[in-house]
């Protein structure tokens, strides 16, 4: 089996989502390969009102149907035409699901990526959350995502509350998600893996330990891939 390789040839390495509250902590991390800056963190004026509102409302849960796939592909095409940059699409962690899906999430995402030619922003916390909340095997599903189209990987923390896993980005990264990082890197070679921590910021030492844990999981997976 050949390892899926990304069209992104730049090695990004380990990264983090930039937030002003963790600027000092990130400056201490010599091994930091990249940072992701979202418009929201550089001021309210950086985003059009509609985008702020859409974010505020939470990410939309898309039904996994042929019809929704068609519409989404059209919408992506409209965005691709208007924007002079390559797009990477990210799937969401959803507590609710539309009833009567016609395909599972991995199939839906694969079709969407293949048909639009967009890259995949793979968020490992999302298949972890969705698998736990909707009762399926995360690893099996992960292997069927379009791993050959990864732009980079998101890893975020969460918490189990009343038997439901919440992808909060304000709690520590759980061992199950770190395990998925290792497993992903054992079967694919993503250009970069970054930590998303958006709220309730921990002390710098904890943040740095978390980045190290992610890097270690990437390394373990990579070693397994090299031996396979």
């Amino acid at each position, binding site marked *: 089996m050949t390892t899926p390789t990304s069209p992104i040839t730049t090695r990004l390495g380990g990264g983090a989502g930039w937030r002003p509250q963790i600027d000092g902590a990130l400056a201490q991390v010599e091994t930091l390969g990249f940072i992701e800056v979202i418009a929201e963190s550089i001021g*309210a004026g950086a985003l059009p*009102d509609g985008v*702020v*509102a859409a974010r*505020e*409302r*939470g990410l*939309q*849960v898309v*039904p996994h149907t042929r*019809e*929704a796939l*068609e*519409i989404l592909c*059209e919408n992506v095409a409209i965005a691709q035409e208007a924007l002079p940059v390559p797009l990477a699409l990210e799937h969401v962690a*959803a*507590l*609710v699901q*539309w*009833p*009567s899906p016609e395909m599972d999430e991995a199939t839906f995402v694969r079709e969407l990526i293949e048909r639009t030619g967009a890259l995949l922003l793979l968020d490992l916390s999302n298949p972890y959350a969705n698998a736990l*909340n909707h009762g399926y095997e995360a690893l099996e599903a992960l292997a069927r995502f379009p791993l050959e189209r990864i732009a980079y990987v998101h890893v975020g923390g969460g918490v189990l*509350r*009343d038997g*439901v896993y*919440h992808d909060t980005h304000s709690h520590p990264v759980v061992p199950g998600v770190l395990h998925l990082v290792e497993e992903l890197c054992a079967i694919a070679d993503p250009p970069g893996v970054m930590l998303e921590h958006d*709220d309730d910021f921990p002390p710098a030492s904890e943040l740095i330990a978390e980045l190290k844990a992610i890097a270690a999981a990437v390394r373990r997976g990579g070693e397994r891939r090299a031996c396979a």
Partner: protein
Amino acid sequence: MPARDRSAYAERQAQLLAALLRGDDFPSGFVAARAEAASSALRRKRGRTVAHDWPALTLCLGDTFTARFDAFDRGAGATASGAPLPDGLAFARWLETAGVVLDDDARVEILLGRAALRRHGVWVRAARLREPYPRLLVVVRMPFAGLVQRSVRLAER
């Protein structure tokens, strides 16, 4: 995809959004317990963004912020736009109706927030403040001139 299919799809998505944000009925087939968990997760998230954009109000409410925002959101619900600025103003109005007494900093923040949301015409509001001396803060928003504020000292009582 024909336009009518797109609009039917948009309508169904809007229905889900209204259920999550305003407590309307969920489209059929959704698991009720999960739906409630999703609604409260969104409520917490909205509370956090409002807290972030309204620091004086948040400081003034202290530990009671979360419980009060929760009560506001369950009752009145998010504004149609769902953005932190109008949500914070709606929350402030709700607090006022509920008889919650706010400090000067929070009241000034609300006044300026109201002015910032005005897009047309001339808008004038005033607030009687106690700190650092008894005064009347007058805020005027005018086309082209933007926002102007003046403090008028009031006699000590």
